[in-house]
């Protein structure tokens, strides 16, 4: 995987410029906004990173990891335990949390990723629920009552900045990792596995290993997101961090943005989170129902996601006279 290979298709410089501009704006945003919006955008970064992580498994490898939120919970609890019981600092605790999530995905991946389709989806849900039950049962996690983490040292503004930039960096890293993977052997291998696993295998791709790699990297990013989130909220309960809804929401972001594209999941996460903040955050009672409705509408009318829509618009613009031939 050390050798990267440029994609056959050309990347437009305009896209890259927009991307860099967007990153600069987001980096400077805390100069103008504060309090509530800092928190909103921090959580937006977190979801974007998790969506990008899930995208590796769902969008590229084509595996419906419906219980990927388990790594969010594992990362969160690992950090909580290390910081409260063993008095670790946040950074080492976070690193170990991410690596633990990755290791668990690596070990579970060998048997579980041999399952195809529905079986894999149900297995990941099962793993999520099993881990939640175990965490609720054992003593070190505080059980069902939850566990409190030490507070971030410093005033509330500093604290806000710390989590804003940490999540921002996590998101950028998740994009960079995805871009690096997509243009390298792992990315090509995953895309091949997604559509023709047998052909991929006889062309020399170790399909199981590649899927395990993808899932492990996905777990690492998700685990660190969980770790940061735990430190940010300073209180954890199993039913919150292992809620299958987290997985589902991230799943919807990936689908909404466009699975199997580098920026689609980020776009999907921003779109869904902002929409939810602006439109219906005050109506908590129907929040779930509206999400359900959005899901159904996306499935019916936007199956290729926002990126699919953009690409199609681009194609209409570019290929007016010659619709066939080179793309």
């Amino acid at each position, binding site marked *: 995987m*050390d*050798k*990267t*290979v*440029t*994609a*056959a*298709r050309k990347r437009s410089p305009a896209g890259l410029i927009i991307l860099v501009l967007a990153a600069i704006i987001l980096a400077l945003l805390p100069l103008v906004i504060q309090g509530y919006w800092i928190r909103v955008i921090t959580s937006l970064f977190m979801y974007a990173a998790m969506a990008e992580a899930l995208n590796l498994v769902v969008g590229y490898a084509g595996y419906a990891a419906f219980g990927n939120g388990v790594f969010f919970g594992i990362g969160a609890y690992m950090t909580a335990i290390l910081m409260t019981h063993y008095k670790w600092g946040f950074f080492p605790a976070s690193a170990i949390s991410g690596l633990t999530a990755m290791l668990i995905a690596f070990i579970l991946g060998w048997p579980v990723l041999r399952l195809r389709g529905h079986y894999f989806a149900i297995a990941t849900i099962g793993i999520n629920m099993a881990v939640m039950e175990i965490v609720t049962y054992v003593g070190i996690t505080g059980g069902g009552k939850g566990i409190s983490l030490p507070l971030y040292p410093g005033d509330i503004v500093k604290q806000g900045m710390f989590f804003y930039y940490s999540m921002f960096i996590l998101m950028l890293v998740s994009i960079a990792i995805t871009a690096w993977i997509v243009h390298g*052997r792992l990315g*090509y*291998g995953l*895309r*091949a596995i*997604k*559509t*023709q696993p*047998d*052909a*991929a*295998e*006889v*062309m*020399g*791709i*170790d*399909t199981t290993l590649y899927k395990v790699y993808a899932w492990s990297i996905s777990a690492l990013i998700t685990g660190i997101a969980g770790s940061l989130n735990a430190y940010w909220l300073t209180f954890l309960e199993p039913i919150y961090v292992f809620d299958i809804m987290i997985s589902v929401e991230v799943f919807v972001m990936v689908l909404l943005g466009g699975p*199997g594209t580098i920026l689609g999941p980020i776009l999907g996460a921003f779109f869904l989170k902002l929409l939810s903040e602006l439109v219906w955050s005050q109506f908590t009672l129907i929040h779930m129902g509206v999400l359900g409705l959005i899901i159904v509408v996306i499935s019916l009318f936007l199956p290729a996601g926002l990126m699919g829509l953009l690409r199609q618009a681009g194609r209409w613009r570019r290929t007016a006279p010659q619709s*066939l*031939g*080179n*793309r």
Partner: protein
Amino acid sequence: MALLEVRNVSRSFGGVHAVNDVSFAINEGEIVGLIGPNGAGKTTVMNLISGLITVDKGEIFFQGQPLSGLKPHTIARKGIARTFQIVKPFQGMTVRENVMIGALFRADAAGLKRTHINDIVRETLALLELEARADSPVEELNLAQRKHLELARAMAMQPRLLLLDEVMAGLNLKEIEKLMHLVRRLNERGITILVIEHVMKAVMNLSHRVLVMYYGGLIAAGPPEEVSQDPRVIEAYLGKRRQKGPVKEVQQ
């Protein structure tokens, strides 16, 4: 030493002997045809060699080394490439990207530079006459082009042995002739080829030797002229064909 040796290999599926005690060898540089009526076990033999299914009994050797227990990707990296009867292009990729997969995952790929890989892809596309479609999505290819793509992907792996599973099925006469020409050219580049084919004229023309399977067993082997005179073969296979005349097999 033979390049590939299949020794007393059997495989059954739930009581059906798909391949029953089959033995043969393929020498370096040969084109060997594998023929037989539908359901004779030809594709199963190919799946056994490439490792997609496991051998019940017997052993397969490649360059003198046993292949049993190896995963398909390991076998592929030893130098065995194959095509599929029902083409399996990687959707959502261009023709070039499809071929690139072959170059990216061959045994020596880790040591190759990016430019070298691109060179391999370009050469392979030229060899299989796909340059014009290089940047088209595979979904836009017609059947003949898809068959060329199957070959191109396999060739980009730089195999020692190439297994071709009905690459000519469904093509018209002109396309078949073109493919025959291509297969010969690949052979001239030093690649040993095992070809399953229903298009009799093609397989008899191309092959240095022909193996005939019937109900899971090998019933004849030898030069095409000899095999086509073998009464068992005529009874099992060619008898029916002759009345129908040449050559085109309708696919699905």
